[in-house]
């Protein structure tokens, strides 16, 4: 399964005050708070972890059909991190999700899969031929009329639609 999430950094600066008192504690576990604190640019780490959680939540929601706002139940770990890339893992109860993120000065985009190998088979596509089921979960209708999993994320100036190769 697949999930993705993008944060437009210009938009988030207008919409969210991440340094607001009590906010970090409500969204992030103690270890995640430590990642944020020790990173040279805390803002980037806040949105990196946030997009990882959101991308993973989209899979969790597909699997369980449960809708909830439970950011601290999605526990992030970072396996590798550079200025432009991050690879991580998100745990949610007994589920494990694998994430790959791209960081730029404009946005942070994370994709998640529930199978590590599938992470390499994710591609971006145009937003067309999308249908939604009664849970609001989107699918891509292919030319042969089969349905492919797709995940859509938009924020501010950016929109990303991802599916498997």
């Amino acid at each position, binding site marked *: 399964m697949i999930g993705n999430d993008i944060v437009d950094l210009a938009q988030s600066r207008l919409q*969210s005050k991440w340094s607001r008192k009590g906010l970090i504690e409500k969204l992030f576990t103690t270890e995640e708070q430590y990642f944020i604190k020790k990173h040279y640019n805390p803002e980037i780490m806040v949105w990196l972890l946030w997009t990882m959680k959101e991308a993973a939540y989209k899979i969790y929601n597909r699997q369980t059909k449960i809708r909830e706002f439970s950011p601290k*139940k999605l526990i992030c770990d970072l396996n590798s991190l550079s200025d432009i890339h991050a690879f991580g893992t998100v745990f949610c109860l007994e589920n494990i999700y694998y994430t790959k993120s791209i960081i730029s000065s404009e946005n942070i985009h994370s994709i998640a899969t529930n199978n590590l190998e599938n992470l390499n088979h994710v591609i971006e596509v145009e937003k067309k031929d999308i249908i939604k089921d009664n849970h609001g979960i989107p699918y891509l209708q292919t030319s042969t009329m089969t349905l492919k999993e797709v995940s859509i994320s938009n*924020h501010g100036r950016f929109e990303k639609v991802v599916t498997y190769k």
Partner: protein
Amino acid sequence: MDRKELTEKLKEIIKPYAANTEAHENLTEETDFIKDLNINSANLVDIVLDIEEKFDVVIDNADMERMLDVKTAIEIIETKLAAK
């Protein structure tokens, strides 16, 4: 504080985060924060923090998890206020 008063107070709190202003204007207990008001999920935590400040209550993780619509939010606030 009665339920109507509480709903009005909550409506005021939600206003700055509701992208769909028309749905906000016509807000009812059935209104969903994300599906109907198009609130950005990152702002749900702001709503929780605003509720804590304005009503002087503490919203724990278990309550926050369920806070996706007006009805549930009101019920949680009512329970917290009654326990004070």
